[in-house]
């Protein structure tokens, strides 16, 4: 019996809940560490970036307006779907990075567990980060965290899956939407993650995934006036100071680069970084 011929996947972008090719028609070759061809990934353009920001902006209202309980369930659903596709993700990590099978499986496990950890924060973060304020007067005064808006993310470049998960999950917890530029060398896991998101009740536009050159795309993301937060966690090899300067024009909130395979390790501060504290004063009547 002859060996079955495989059906390879076309890896495209993920914008507004759809999987378009780059409008530029460009692709780049993704290879194994030994140089064997794996796939052609889309080489996203400035226009793709702008389309992604537009989609993310349009999704803010629905995602931030969903109840925290609902967001928590949707993010937990992402973990459930990932769990069922562990083998596929491990295969992709092995193929792209040359990691051992055990190492790849451990990375997938960690990525799933981080989704679960962050999913659980959705309906608790406001309790931890907000509080009532005992002002000196007849007012009910309360401070609560709200999402910043559209967050541009340069995903950690040294890992295929756990890095991108660790960067986007905390931004989603409070209700932000995300445009993420995947690891340039290991983009395939990011697009497979997008397939998981697309089948996990995450509304279209809440996460948008671009593959290609972070050096080419990051300046457009940093300077875009509709990008309100910029996570440069994976931008350590870029001219990231210039990105910060570009972001300063519209007071965009910026997280600096982090190095190493444990970049974007889970913390409460990563959720807090892209939230705004709203304080409301309600008058109390005299009774």
């Amino acid at each position: 019996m002859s060996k079955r011929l495989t059906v390879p996947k076309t890896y495209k972008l993920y914008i507004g809940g759809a999987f378009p090719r780059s409008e530029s028609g460009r692709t780049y070759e993704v290879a194994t560490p030994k140089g064997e061809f794996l796939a052609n990934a889309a080489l996203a353009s400035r226009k793709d970036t702008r389309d992604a920001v537009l989609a993310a902006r349009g999704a803010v209202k629905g995602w931030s307006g969903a109840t925290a309980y609902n967001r928590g369930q949707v993010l937990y659903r992402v973990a459930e779907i990932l769990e069922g596709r562990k083998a596929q993700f491990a295969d992709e990590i092995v193929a792209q990075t040359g990691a051992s099978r055990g190492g790849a499986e451990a990375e997938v496990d960690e990525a799933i567990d981080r989704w679960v950890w962050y999913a659980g924060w959705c309906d608790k973060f406001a309790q931890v980060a907000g509080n009532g304020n005992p002002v000196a007067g007849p007012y009910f005064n309360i401070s609560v965290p709200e999402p910043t808006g559209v967050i541009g993310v340069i995903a950690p470049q040294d890992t295929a899956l756990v890095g991108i998960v660790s960067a986007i999950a905390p931004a989603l917890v409070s209700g932000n939407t995300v445009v993420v530029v995947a690891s340039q060398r290991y983009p395939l896991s990011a697009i497979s993650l997008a397939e998981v998101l697309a089948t996990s009740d995450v509304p279209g536009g809440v996460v948008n995934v671009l593959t290609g050159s972070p050096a080419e795309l990051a300046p457009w993301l940093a300077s875009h006036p509709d990008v309100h937060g910029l996570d440069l966690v994976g931008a350590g090899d870029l001219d990231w100071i210039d990105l910060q300067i570009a972001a300063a024009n519209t007071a965009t909130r910026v997280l600096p680069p982090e190095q190493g395979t444990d970049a974007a390790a889970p913390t409460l501060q990563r959720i807090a970084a892209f939230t705004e504290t709203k304080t409301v004063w309600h008058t109390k009547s005299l009774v």
Partner: protein
Amino acid sequence: MSFLEYAPAPESRSILKLRDEYGLFIDGEFRPGAGESFTTISPADEKPIATIASGTQADVDAAVAAARKAYDKTWSKMSGRDRGKYLFRIARLVQERARELAVAESLDNGKPIKESRDVDVPLVAAWFFYYAGWADKLDYAGLGADPKALGVAGQIIPWNFPLLMLAWKVAPALAAGNTVVLKPAETTPLSALIFAEILQQADLPAGVVNIVTGAGATGAAIVRHPDVDKIAFTGSTAVGREIAKAVAGTDKKLTLELGGKAANIVFEDAPIDQAIEGIVNGIFFNQGHVCCAGSRLLVQESIHDEVVDRLKTRLSTLRLGDPLDKNTDIGAINSAEQLQRITELSRIGEEEGAVRWSADCAIPENGFWFAPTIFTNVQASHRIARDEVFGPVLSVLTFRTPGEAIEKANNTPYGLSAGIWSDKGSRILAVADRLRAGVVWANTFNRFDPSSPFGGYKESGYGREGGRHGLLAYLKGGRA
């Protein structure tokens, strides 16, 4: 004598013990500045008050060095309990010298004495009192156990609430264990220099707080100083942008409290008497020199005429004049430059087709003054509806539905504050949820409290001042 004519009741200036000349406050003592001195004047009569030193790069170097030494040798080693005791001392000394500080503030800034006496200075004391108690409780600030101070904090403050902005910056910085180099605004250095005397009376260790007066170049020297760990700035969005660019790529932690163009939304079921007072307080408090001023009145169409008529009637009773007079409601515009900006934007407002009404009040011969002004028939595209005027100028726009009100309110790059006036609690809660602003006042406006976080969304800046959140701007680390 009409009911509006009162005998003058000026607060006495004799309580002031001003010097003719003030140096820079560095390492616990006043010393001459290397730059060319300048004169601070009273905006109410343009008369000089005192000669003020101007800090150069070398002076800023000396101030940062003093702050670093104080941090390394004294302040970072002191217990939180003792840091707190110093802050409590400062709070009490501010209360003891409250009248003197209020007179100095009104003299130098031009704000009415009733505001500096009843709002600014009491809040200054409250701010130090509040953060004093935090100094030995930082484990509960929200960063986990044993959070650390950042080090030397550079702080640059505006001229609209000179001493209050100093308190907003200095109190949390010291409570968290940082030392400070602070630059007051060029036109309002006086109260900060009296505050330096208070620090001497409190016996605060030398170098923990350094006050370097000067103009923009002095501030830039602080921002760019390599041994400064934190920059806190309150002022214009344009300058905030430049500061954010200057600290890009450094380890300096940055918080910005920038401009605003707040919507004050009045629904047809609003408690109208309170709303009129709230609108007036929202935009004419402190001559409108307030970053969170309610400068865009969004009034439901059905009550537009009534609200505008009542506003005009109310504004006609406001008394503009001598800031030191206890009867004064509207003081002087802080500077000739600011008056020019307000005048220019108002002129553009008329040119663009908005209808201008100004209160008919006598304008003193000397000094900088601007009569309370309302623009009606304002469109969202008009510059008076988009640009921060930072003066006693109210733009009135209308809306029909809550959805339209929310959309118009959020239609600005700013996001500092907003107001809602309605008798319907459920509507207030729903509208407050959807306003993109850091502070929302419901059936009140321009309330401040040291326990209540304050700060912006969007281009109004980032970071919070006040409350537990205000501490986080001056801390790092903490064990999970």
